């Protein structure tokens, strides 16, 4: 069924636009003077002023690898993050943990772990899919570099950015 939308009846002052135009000019000039006199301040001067301390806990910055408080590397090179990564930014080369190692039950560790930050879209799927709580999106957002090679974060850089994460589940235990 067709709807008939009635046109609103406009009064004379509405029809000649001018009162509305003047009201609008009043609003804009109020904003102009509020900012000019410094009564209101909305924007920040970015490189000098930053909002870093206000970033929420769920902020999705650069993906990083973390170690737990025992200094153990969490990643077991299952490669789930590599497979789920939509832009295929992650490259993992798994290596075998030698038989005489304390953590030999874990079997695999990442020999090479690289995230290409040019490709990364900060979606957080790698963090979501990780069964080992090894990869986390931290609060670094200003990832810059002068060459493409510089923008590829290797394992060392990832651990450097990630640091130590406490309060994680200890899945691997020599006694278990």
């Amino acid at each position, binding site marked *: 069924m067709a709807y008939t939308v009635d046109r609103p009846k406009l009064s004379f002052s509405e029809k000649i636009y001018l009162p509305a*135009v003047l009201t609008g000019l009043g609003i804009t000039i109020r904003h*102009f003077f509020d900012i000019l006199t410094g009564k209101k301040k909305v924007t920040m001067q970015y490189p000098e002023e930053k909002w870093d301390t206000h970033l929420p806990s769920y902020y999705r910055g650069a993906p990083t690898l973390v170690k737990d408080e025992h200094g153990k590397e969490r990643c077991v090179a299952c490669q789930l993050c590599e497979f789920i990564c939509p832009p295929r930014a992650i490259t993992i080369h798994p290596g075998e943990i030698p038989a005489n190692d304390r953590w030999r039950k874990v079997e695999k560790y990442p020999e090479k772990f690289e995230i290409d930050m040019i490709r990364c879209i900060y979606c957080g799927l790698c963090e979501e899919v990780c069964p080992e709580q090894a990869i986390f999106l931290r609060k670094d957002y200003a990832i810059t570099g002068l060459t493409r090679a510089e923008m590829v974060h290797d394992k060392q850089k990832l651990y450097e950015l990630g640091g130590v994460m406490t309060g994680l589940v200890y899945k691997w235990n020599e006694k278990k």
Partner: protein
Amino acid sequence: MNELLFIVLMSLVKGLGLLFLVILPLVSYTVYAERKVGAYIQDRVGPNRVGLPLTLLGFKKDLPLWGLVQPFADVFKLLLKEDFTPAHVNKVYYWLAPACAMAPSIMALAVVPFGSTLLGQPMVIANANIGILWVFAVSSLGVYGIVLAGWSSNSKYPFLGGIRSSSQMISYELSLALSVIPIFLICGTLNLPAIVQYQIEHGWLISPIWIKGVSLVPLHFDFQEVLHSFDLLKLILWIPLVISFVVFTVSMFAETNRLPFDLPESETELVGGYHTEYSSMKFALFFLGEYAAMIVGSSVIVTLFFGGWHIPLLPTTIAEPYSFWGIVLGLAHIAAFFAKVAVLLFLFIWVRFTLPRFRYDQLMKLGWYFFIEIALVNVFLAALILAIVPK
């Protein structure tokens, strides 16, 4: 010296001085003002970084200077950009169009008096009797630049922009010219310096009353004359003059392609409108032309309604033009003129950041159904008042 040669040289000095010392800097700083005022209206900061690069000279910090050096950076950017000519354009007209857009707006300034006298020279390049007709004739040539740009670019968005601009400018030219006829009925002349002189004697045309017999330099107050300065004719003529001011100003917005009438380049609909295919300095010429047209429009409004270079309460002429005070007064009149122009430019910018764009049919309707009729009736109203009300 040969008198003709002297006039030619003097006009050249005045013309080049006005163009390079006043208009072009004014254009670049209008762009700066537009960005800054626009930013403030939208609760932003605007350009505030480009200042004096003191770090290049070995100092610790740069001086930001509220971004006042930004126009220079903009000019360098435009000069250094690649000047790209697409393969599909009609080369001759494509190269001709930017000049056609820029030149008319500057040419129109020739008849506008921008000051009283400086060193005995009247501060108007051409004291022509056709005055305002020259402004209308030349500024309507500005449409050729836009139409040529739209047509020669040979792609659809510039073409649409060109079509819109030609129809828009033709429509608003009528009301633009009709709306100022009351002024010529009142002043009895088309000559712009003469109109300014009329306003000095009888008061600015935009003001309903004008108090005579008061002045600051020399200090003078004549109570009798103040009492007798009430002028019924002027008070009644104020009604058609305000109508004519509103119609003229709004038509000027349309004529200079400014928001809310910027349909030829409406970036949200037509990418960039008629200058979509232009880059570098060719684009900059369109840009300069648009802002120069704004400045010319404001100058004409100031001259017609706001008393031109006249400063109330100060003398308009001085006996010895080569004395110190003579030069100061001459410069003060030029400054007063451009201060008034700056206020109107602020109005242009303020309106731009307040009103949304008109729809195309609304624009045409406004021009043909309302403004031309209002302007026409206004002419008869002014003539009637002049005929009935005694002097």
